[in-house]
């Protein structure tokens, strides 16, 4: 099946839309990539500190309890959310065929967001944190983040409402969902936790926030990308559109119930972790249905991901999403969860969400978007390939070592008369894997950052054809299709 070719007017219109988003979207991408590099360095240092506890003892800024939360904040608010916002703006402009008119406003709020992230990272790092993952900045920081977010993404709503014809595409629904849900969970969690009247719910809400951030923000944004990139590059429609709709609503109705299973057996009524566990298991249906739907749409096009960087990253991200859903469902049952709870596995699971499925899909989107808005091609396909393999091996190493290390650690803790330090000693070998993984990811992102800045300052390759992962003589036609020339 082939897609109708765009008319010259349509190509012109697309170019206008792409140009309108150029500066804000490039601003979000480049500053996000810089935060990502900072986050990977902090991640590497914190893993090293965990493996060698005596390292840098004199320096208060190099403690694990300071480095690790700073790393998480930089990774999620600095990189993931910022890159996601850029992708959302571009995707919405393209899908609704509306140019982004508020360029200056978005640039201003983008700077505000970066300032707030810098505050969030630095306050935690310099010792004003609250020891609750991802919400541990001082109370006055969160309103800045919330306002910057709202003022940046609110332009998506008028775009959605002025779209011209037909039913909304599934990607638009995911974007609108992500736009609305994030402020709701973020404001709720921050207000209630800082109110401090229900201490135990404060911790529970923190777990609820982390899980909701994955399923209510990161999953929708990456699915919006996947539902756009995969049909675009393969040139085929989604295999089953009703299935896509059904899994969208299934995800929407279930995601809010997840999270409390992280503290199962904790000081909460038992029904709360039970219902969260059940929701995590049922969500598996939505995620697996979505991923299978997308993979079937690609059937027979497997050659394309040899060439297209966007497709390769996106497909890898979707597979990671399925693995994330499976692992989080497994760990919310007592059978697996009671040993994995509080072990290294939880770090692996969270990183799988933030880096594994979200970032990899977003890289796919960035490789697709940037050439279109800057009007030049990526300088080197080889470096994209290195970026992919180092990132992929990095995240796989991290997840596997943290899973196995978590099982080792949890198994030692489950034997009641075994000395506690045994669990530390036995699992610390796996922390080497975590440090190695951040090293690999750090190298891959250094390359990514260099390429992105080259594109930013207009030093991209000026060429008719897109940059592919491999170039084979005589295959230019298929290669051109592979990169989704449109």
């Amino acid at each position, binding site marked *: 099946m082939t897609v109708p070719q765009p008319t010259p007017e349509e190509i012109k219109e697309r170019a206008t839309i792409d140009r309108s988003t150029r500066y804000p979207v490039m601003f979000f991408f480049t500053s996000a990539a810089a935060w990502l590099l900072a986050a990977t360095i902090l991640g590497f240092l914190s893993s090293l500190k965990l493996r060698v506890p005596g390292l840098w003892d004199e320096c208060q800024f190099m403690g694990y*309890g300071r480095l690790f939360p700073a790393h998480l904040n930089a990774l999620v608010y600095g990189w993931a959310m910022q890159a996601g916002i850029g992708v959302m703006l571009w995707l919405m402009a393209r899908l609704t065929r509306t140019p982004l008119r508020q360029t200056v406003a978005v640039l201003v709020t983008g700077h505000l967001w970066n300032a707030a992230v810098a505050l969030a990272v630095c306050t935690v790092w310099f010792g004003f944190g609250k020891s609750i993952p991802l919400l541990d900045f001082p109370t006055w920081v969160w309103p800045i983040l919330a306002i910057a977010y709202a003022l940046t993404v609110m332009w998506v709503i008028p775009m959605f409402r002025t779209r011209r014809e037909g039913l909304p595409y599934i990607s638009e629904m995911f974007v609108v969902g992500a736009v609305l849900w994030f402020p709701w969970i973020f404001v709720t969690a921050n207000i209630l936790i800082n*109110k401090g*009247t229900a201490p*135990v719910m404060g911790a529970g809400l923190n777990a*609820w926030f982390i899980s909701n951030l994955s399923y209510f923000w990161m999953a929708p944004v990456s699915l919006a990308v996947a539902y756009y990139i995969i049909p675009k590059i393969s040139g085929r429609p989604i295999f089953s559109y009703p299935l896509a709709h059904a899994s969208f609503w299934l995800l*929407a109705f279930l995601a809010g119930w997840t999270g409390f299973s992280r503290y199962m057996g904790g000081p909460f009524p038992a029904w709360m972790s039970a219902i969260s566990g059940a929701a995590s298991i049922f969500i598996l249906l939505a995620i697996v249905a979505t991923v299978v739907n997308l993979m079937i749409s690609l059937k027979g096009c497997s050659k394309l991901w040899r060439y297209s960087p966007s497709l390769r990253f996106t497909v890898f991200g979707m597979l990671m999403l399925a693995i994330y859903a499976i692992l989080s469902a497994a760990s919310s049952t007592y059978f697996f969860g009671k040993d994995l709870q509080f072990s*290294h596995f939880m770090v692996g699971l969270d990183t799988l969400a933030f880096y594994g499925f979200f970032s990899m899909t977003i890289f796919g989107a960035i490789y697709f978007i940037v050439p279109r808005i800057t009007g030049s091609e990526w300088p080197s396909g080889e470096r994209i390939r290195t970026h992919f393999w180092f990132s992929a091996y990095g995240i796989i190493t991290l997840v596997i070592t943290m899973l196995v290390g978590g099982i080792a650690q949890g198994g030692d803790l489950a034997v009641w008369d075994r000395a506690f330090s045994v*669990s530390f000693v036995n699992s610390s070998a796996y922390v080497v894997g975590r440090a190695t993984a951040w090293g690999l990811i750090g190298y891959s992102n250094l390359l990514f950052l260099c390429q992105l800045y080259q594109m930013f300052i207009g030093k991209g390759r000026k060429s008719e054809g897109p940059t592919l992962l491999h170039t084979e003589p005589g295959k230019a036609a298929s290669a051109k299709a592979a990169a989704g020339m449109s």
Partner: protein
Amino acid sequence: MKFDRFAKLIAGLSLAFALPWIFLVMVPFITGSNLEALPYPEGQDIDGGVTAYPDKALYQYGSSDYGRQVYAAEGCAYCHTQVIRPTYAGADMWRKGWGGREEDGFARETQARDYLQEEIAPLGYQRIGPDLSNVGHRITDRDLMHRHLFDPTSIDRDSGMPAFLHLYDEAPDGSKLVPNKKAEALVDYLLSLKKDQPLPSKG
């Protein structure tokens, strides 16, 4: 027409989120905010003239309120939990000294009221180090607690804890380390950690 479609989508998305928001977040939060101390029934004999569970005075120790902030700021909760799970969810209560005073041979799981003196219960993220719910029973000596902070490997060779040297200043003659305000407050807080107050018996 356009508005209808948009309104429908927004209504659907809001409904999807409102259900868990009300039932999993707001209702438990309001219930949790209204937790009151439970009086002990007549005939239940409690040491020390304590009349209700929890008795907040039991959890105050010196500058433990400031120590709580130091505990949070140093990120202690990233490696130490403060939650004892019931036996069906893990072996926490069998571990010596975790679920209560070791010599009493009594242990119980932590409950919501055990955290009423906190603003945010530091349940913790991981267990790189041991659970601290009842560390105030396990380590009662102030100097020993300080040694755990500035030189943990001198107590357990395999300890994975870093030395928190920035909480200690060198004495003027350079012979020993002197705890600063933060270290004293943190030790006060750690010594105050006891989550095994007897529960009121029912009826």
